[in-house]
């Protein structure tokens, strides 16, 4: 029998990131997947990053993860979203060449020490009471591990719908994990059913590109990884077209043939990613919807039409696609489909994504009710780090709402659960102005270095950057100007007689920072990247103080852990209502408890006092 510290089940974005993170921590790790060649496959749209999602990628990158590096290798159309808005809400994104992405991930996995990839289907877990100690493969062989990360994606009881045709599957052409799903019933965890949809894939050589508007890559591209400055692949454009009245008529006439509207699908789909059927029913007064034609690769003619996912029968898909400008003669390579799958209520997880009530079992990715590569990969990172920490007897690695988008996501999932597939948005992060994509490394890489999960090259690069930033920032903070002097340089400042530092003066709204820097100090000696970063910090510095103070308060509550075996029943005086809610949600921290609806400050104090008295008793013993 094989022995590992950590076994990761599933080779999607969550699984790859989990396995690599665990191996970086120094744990002897196995990645179990149905097919080695499937590692790093992008089964939905061919893009990485975006708003909120780009933040997650940068945070994974700050921990020396895979997604940013692979995305940069495969990036064929880098665009920084919200370029006209402030840096806090800008998100790096790129179209990715599927093949390049896959091979980049596979190369990274292959090069990772401590990591073994094993092909096979997991059909059961080995259990000793509540401890999960290994996995059983379809061929009967067993693998032992101290910790297991399950990343089953949409494969648990996956059902694919095209019109009224239903097939079982995790992705088109791949079998679902029914045996494993059956075994998991024994774990008696609350679950639900979600759905998601894909559009038909088009043959790009049959698209009339000449009639379409093109959206180009940024001229000065922003990379996903902090390690890179330049795209590595050729840059291309995406086409833009739109649906029209005729498209809508075709869809409307065939609505009852859609799996979703025909009542075949019970799972709940995301509101932010409606199918074309949904768009036409719910927004009946809109006469047109945008469609982005995203090439899936440089030497691949497949095109992903973003915005028209569907579960209509194949022939209806052909009809409505051909009603769209530029697609009059387009051939569908693979019809769109809706997929329904099981997920586990993430409220059964701890902040380290361990399953409550079991030892050594972690869940990450879509089985926790999320959607998106980035969300999955970020959870993979959390679960991988923590599975390794557990296997090696080290302390938990926690992400909080005050430190990262990853922390926001984990906290949302485990304390609020999901009602639709969970996707990251910048608006979910209450400390958005300080949790930026541009400072993900400053926020997280020191922690990652301390954990020992950062490679030498990245460590050196980060430390150099941090040193430069600190040096120039303190230099700029030493230089001060009166409001009169600043007016003399041609800046509009309030004439209040207050002195301002050069750092504070950097963020003039009506003057680009390069220009401010030229007027105020000799900037060419400062690297442009350093200046740009100091400007970003300066822009939000007033708010950063406020948000940091708030974050500090929240952090205190986040640091107050509630023991897993805390018994609310013996807490005198707690109202029945609150007792029931606390017992049901089992919050891990006082901060989480505080977010339970109807919770009162006095009740929190009561919980806190009981924790304290338990601690005191323990010390006394």
């Amino acid at each position: 029998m094989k022995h590992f510290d950590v076994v990761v089940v599933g080779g999607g974005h969550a699984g790859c990131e989990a396995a690599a993170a665990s191996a970086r921590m120094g744990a002897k790790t196995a990645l179990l997947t149905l097919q080695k060649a499937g590692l790093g496959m992008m089964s939905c749209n061919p893009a990485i990053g975006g708003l909120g999602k780009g933040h997650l990628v940068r945070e994974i990158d700050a921990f020396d993860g895979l997604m940013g590096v692979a995305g940069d290798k495969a990036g064929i159309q880098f665009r920084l979203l919200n370029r006209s808005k402030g840096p806090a809400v800008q998100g790096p994104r790129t179209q990715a060449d599927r093949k390049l992405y896959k091979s980049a991930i596979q190369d990274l996995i292959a090069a990772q020490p401590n990591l073994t990839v094993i092909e096979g289907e997991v059909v059961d877990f080995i259990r000793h009471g509540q401890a999960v100690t290994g996995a059983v493969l379809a061929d009967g062989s067993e693998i032992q591990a101290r910790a297991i990360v399950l990343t089953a994606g949409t494969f648990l009881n996956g059902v694919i719908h095209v019109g009224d045709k239903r097939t079982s599957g995790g992705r088109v052409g791949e079998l679902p994990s029914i045996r494993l799903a059956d075994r998991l019933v024994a774990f008696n965890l609350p679950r639900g059913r979600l759905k998601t949809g894909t559009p038909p894939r088009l043959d790009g050589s049959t698209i009339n590109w000449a009639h379409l508007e093109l959206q180009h890559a940024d001229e000065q591209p922003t990379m996903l990884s902090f390690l890179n400055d330049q795209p590595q692949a050729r840059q291309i454009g995406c086409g833009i077209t739109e649906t029209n009245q005729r498209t809508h008529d075709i869809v409307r006439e065939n609505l009852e043939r859609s799996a979703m509207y025909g009542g075949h699908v019970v799972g709940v789909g995301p509101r932010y990613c409606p199918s074309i059927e949904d768009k036409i029913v719910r927004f009946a007064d809109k006469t047109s919807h945008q469609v982005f034609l995203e090439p899936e690769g440089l030497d691949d003619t497949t095109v992903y039409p973003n915005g028209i996912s569907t579960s209509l029968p194949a022939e209806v898909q052909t009809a409505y696609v051909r009603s769209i400008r530029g697609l009059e003669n387009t051939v569908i390579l693979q019809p769109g489909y809706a997929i329904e799958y099981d997920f586990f209520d993430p409220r059964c997880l701890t902040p380290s994504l361990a399953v409550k009530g079991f030892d050594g079992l972690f869940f990450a990715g879509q089985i926790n009710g999320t959607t998106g590569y980035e969300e999955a990969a970020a959870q993979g990172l959390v679960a991988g780090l923590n599975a390794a920490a557990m296997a090696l007897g080290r302390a938990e690695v926690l992400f909080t709402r005050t430190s990262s988008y990853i922390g926001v996501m984990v906290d949302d999932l485990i304390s609020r659960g999901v009602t639709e597939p969970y996707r990251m948005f910048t608006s979910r992060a209450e400390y958005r102005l300080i949790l930026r994509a541009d400072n993900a490394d400053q926020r997280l890489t020191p922690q990652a270095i301390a954990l020992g999960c950062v490679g030498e090259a990245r460590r050196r690069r980060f430390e150099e950057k941090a040193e430069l930033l600190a040096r120039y920032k303190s230099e700029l903070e030493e230089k001060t100007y009166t409001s009169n002097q600043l007016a003399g340089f041609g800046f509009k400042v309030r004439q209040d007689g207050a002195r301002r530092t050069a750092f504070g003066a950097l963020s003039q709204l009506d003057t680009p920072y390069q220009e401010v820097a030229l007027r105020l100090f000799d900037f060419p000696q400062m690297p442009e990247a350093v200046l740009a970063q100091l400007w970003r910090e300066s822009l939000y510095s007033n708010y950063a103080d406020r948000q940091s103070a708030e974050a500090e308060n929240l952090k205190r509550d986040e640091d107050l852990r509630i023991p897993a075996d805390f018994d609310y029943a013996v807490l005198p005086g707690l109202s029945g209502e609150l007792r029931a809610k606390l017992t049901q949600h089992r919050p891990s921290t006082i901060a989480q408890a505080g977010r339970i609806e109807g919770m009162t400050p006095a009740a929190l104090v009561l919980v806190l006092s009981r924790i304290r008295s338990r601690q005191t008793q323990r010390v006394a013993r």
Partner: protein
Amino acid sequence: MLETIFALASGTGKAGVAVVRLSGPRAHDALGRMASVPEVRRASVRRLQWQGVVLDEALVLVFAQGASFTGEDCVELHLHGGRAVVQAVLVALSEMPGLRMAEAGEFTRRALENGCLDLTQVEGLADLIDAETEAQRVQSLRVLSGAIGAKVEVWRRALIRAGALLEATIDFVDEDVPVDVMPEVREILGGLIVAFRAEVEGAKRAERVRDGFEVAIVGRPNAGKSTLLNAFAGRKAAITSEIAGTTRDVIEVRMDLGGLAVTFLDTAGIRKTTDIVEALGVDLAIERAVAADIRVFLLDAEGPFEGIAVRPGDLLVQGKADMIANGAEFAVSGLTGVGVSDLLGRISDGLSLRSVGDGVLTRERHRIAVVKALAALELAQREVESEFAVVEIAAEELRAAARALDVLLGRIDVEVLLGEIFSSFCIGK
């Protein structure tokens, strides 16, 4: 830095003494803004002043960090128990930077965290919780029906809409959302700001209706003020005599006037005097008269006098109508009762006018919430009106406003905003 919190520590309602507690790094500084800070742990009498107005003469106790009931720097203000006094002190504290009203249980929590509390004391908290849960429910104005509930619902909808519009342009940039949402956001913010300003004004009136109005009778010595007060009261509340300067302290008579609680104040006659005690009485008379809602200027034969400004709504009345017959338009006599009921009628009318208002904020906590939200909305407005609007900063201010209004409107979190976005715009490129 940790926030400094304050609250009324003794029970609400009329009591002999009311204790307001402050705890946190700015507690001593806050006291310093109102009076000189006495030595720690030494009970001292201090005149508390805020923005030129004397709030109360209070017994003040100061505790240092590490030797106080919360373990932090603390101050206790033992005030005269009147609601108006307590209210005035709480308002003053809420206006100081870094201070906010404590949540229920917050002092206890700080004590606990700093290891300054016997755990059996905390058990006592338990009894509070059911009551508090219920109180919170009632406190949220959202649960109210009728006009107030409807109004609050309108505010909530407006805040959600403005927040959703801003967030939509941030999080769904490549999507089919309106390019320029700023005109609608500006309109919503403008409307909310006007409404909230009116509420803050109205809150003062609402407070008055609850705590009662004050009407001061002022005049030169021996103008007949005490006799008039006795006529109002229908009893000998004040000593009267022919000797000018009989009244030295302020004498209060509380009565119900057409459904309004009104306290009439009989004050010392206004004149220059070398008598130290009388001079104190004159100062006090002026102070209270200035703070009163209406001043009845009781004139003697010599007519108007200096010292107290006449404000709109004040009444000028010829006194001693039984003795002075100068054809004044409006004359009264406390002795014979001539004109007294007419005067009471006019006072009652004047006060009724002032109590009319649709302010919904009858609690200080609510008022503070709206004041905070208003400040945030004004900053958001400044941002969206700017040529160089930074939308995420406007959104941050809007978020701060919604957070401040939690207690009134119920929580407006990101799920609520996303709900609004997804139902208004077709997201899903």
